[in-house]
C-alpha cells in the first residue's frame, strides 16, 4: 500500500498506509490526523483540507482545476506554490511516500 506522511506545524510526523485511490483528505480524517478537517466531504467547497505538498512530489500531482485554484486563493492559511486541497489528490503508486505539511489553521 502507498504511504503518506503528514507533518504538523510543530514538526511531528505521522505516516499512514493508505489504499490506492484514497484522497489525502479522506486518509487524514479517517485516521484522526489533526489539522485536516474536510468539512464539505471532499467537494472542493470548503478549503479546510489545505496542505502544502513538498516540492519533490509536485511532478506526480494531478493538475489543479479552476475550482481548486479559486478555493485555494481563499484558504485560511497563506497560499503558497505548494498549496493543494487534500481532497483533490488521490494517492496512487506514483505518489507513494508523499510528504505534506499541514498549515497552522483551516478555519
Amino acid at each position, binding site marked *: 500500500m502507498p504511504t503518506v506522511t503528514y507533518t504538523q506545524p510543530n514538526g511531528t510526523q505521522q505516516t499512514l498506509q493508505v489504499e490506492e485511490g484514497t484522497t489525502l483528505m479522506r486518509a487524514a480524517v479517517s485516521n*484522526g490526523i489533526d489539522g485536516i478537517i474536510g468539512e464539505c466531504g471532499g467537494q472542493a*467547497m470548503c478549503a479546510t483540507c489545505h496542505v502544502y505538498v513538498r516540492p519533490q512530489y509536485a511532478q506526480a500531482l494531478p493538475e489543479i482545476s479552476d475550482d481548486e485554484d479559486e478555493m485555494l486563493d*481563499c484558504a485560511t492559511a497563506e497560499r503558497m506554490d505548494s498549496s493543494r486541497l487534500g481532497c483533490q489528490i488521490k494517492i496512487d503508486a506514483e505518489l507513494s511516500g508523499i510528504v505534506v505539511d499541514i498549515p497552522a489553521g483551516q478555519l
Partner: protein
Amino acid sequence: MSVVIIGGGQAGLQVADTLRTEGYGGEIHVIAEESGLPYQRPPLSKDYLAPGRAPAPLPLRGASFFVDKNITLHEGAQALAIDRAERKVRLTDGSLGYDHLVFATGARNRVLNCPGASLAGIHGLKTLTDAEALHTALPTARNIVIIGAGFIGLEFAAAALAHGCDVTVLEFAPRPMGRALTPVMGEWFAAAHRSQGVDLRLGEGIDRFEPGADGRVGAAVSTTGASYPADLVLVGIGVQPNDTLASDAGLETSNGVVVDETLRTADPAVLAIGDCASFPSAHAQVRLRLESVQNATDQARHAARTVLGANHPYTELPWFWSTQGPYRLQMAGLARPDDDTLVLGDQAAAKFSVLCFRDGVLTAVESVNAPADHMAARKLLAAGTGITRDQAETEGFTLKAAASTPLVPVVA
C-alpha cells in the same frame, strides 16, 4: 461534570470536539442511534451514487478521535426521555446524568402519504442505509421519477442521469429549490437541468403511485393526471426536525427546538444546534431553522463555548453548497425570493453569480461554478461591508476585488 450530546451527526461530533479542544475537563457523551462510525451526509447524494463500486462512507471523525479526546460514543443507543429536574437522560441501554445537555438530533425526511406511497422501489435519502439501497438499485433502474425539485432531488437527478436513466422530476412549485434560491437562479437551474436531459415538470405534484406487474412501483401519476413510468422513485420533499424528545421534556418547540441567540433553550442547562434547532438569525432578522453543514458546525462550536461559559450571540454567516452534475452551486447569506438581484458573470457559460440586495445593500450571493465570487462574498457579508447596488454596477466591479480592499463595516 458531564455534557451529554444527543445525536452523533455533523453537529453532535463538532460540539464534542470543540468542548475537548477548548479545555472542557468533564465527561463527554455522544448518543448516536445510527450504528457504525458517524459519517458525513453530503457525499451520499453525490460521489456515493456515482456509477461503479460504492466508496466507503466518509467518517466525520476517525475511530481514534474518540479515544484520543476521551469522548464516549454510545453507538447504536437512542435517547428515550429526559428528566430535566433530575438532569438525567434515559437511553435504550441505561441512563446518564448531565450538567449540560445538547440536542443535535437533526431532522428526518418528510414522508408522502398518497396512495401507493409504500410500494417497493420508492426511496428516501437521508442515511447511509438509504444511500446504499439507492446505489444498489441505480445500475438496473431505467425510468426514475423524483418527487420534489429541492437540493436532494436535483443532486439525485444528476446522479441518475450519469447512470443512463430517464429522469422525470415532479415539483409542485413553479421553480426548483424555490424556498432557498432567487427566482433568477431557480429559473436558470430549471433550464440547466432540462438541457442535461432531465424532464422537469413544474407546477405538477404527485397524486399517486401505481404498482407494476411485479407488485413494485410501476408508475407515478401526477396532479395533472399524467402518468410517468417509474421503476425507481426518490421522494425528496423536505424534512421535519427531530424535536419531540425536547417537547416531551417540556421545552418549547416550533419547527425545531426553540433556542435563544446563545443557542440555549429556556432551560439554561439545555442547548440545541444544527438541523433540529430553531434560532433567531442575526442575518435574516427572523427565527429560522437551517439544514446545512455550516450551520451544524458553526452552531456546534458556538454551543461548546456557551457551555464553557461564554455568553455571546451566535452571528455566523450562513453558507451552503450543492453539487448537481456539472453545476456547483454555492450560496453566501440567505437570499429571499423578493430580493432585488443583479447578475455578474456569464450565465450561458454556467459561471456567474447572482447578487441579492435588500434596501439597496448586498445581503446574499448565489454562485454557479464561481468559487472566487463565493469566497469573496462570504468575506464581505461576514464583515458587514455594505456593498451597494450602485457600487456593484460600476464598470469593472468584482466581488474578489471588493473583498481585497480594506473592509469598512456598516453594521457592528
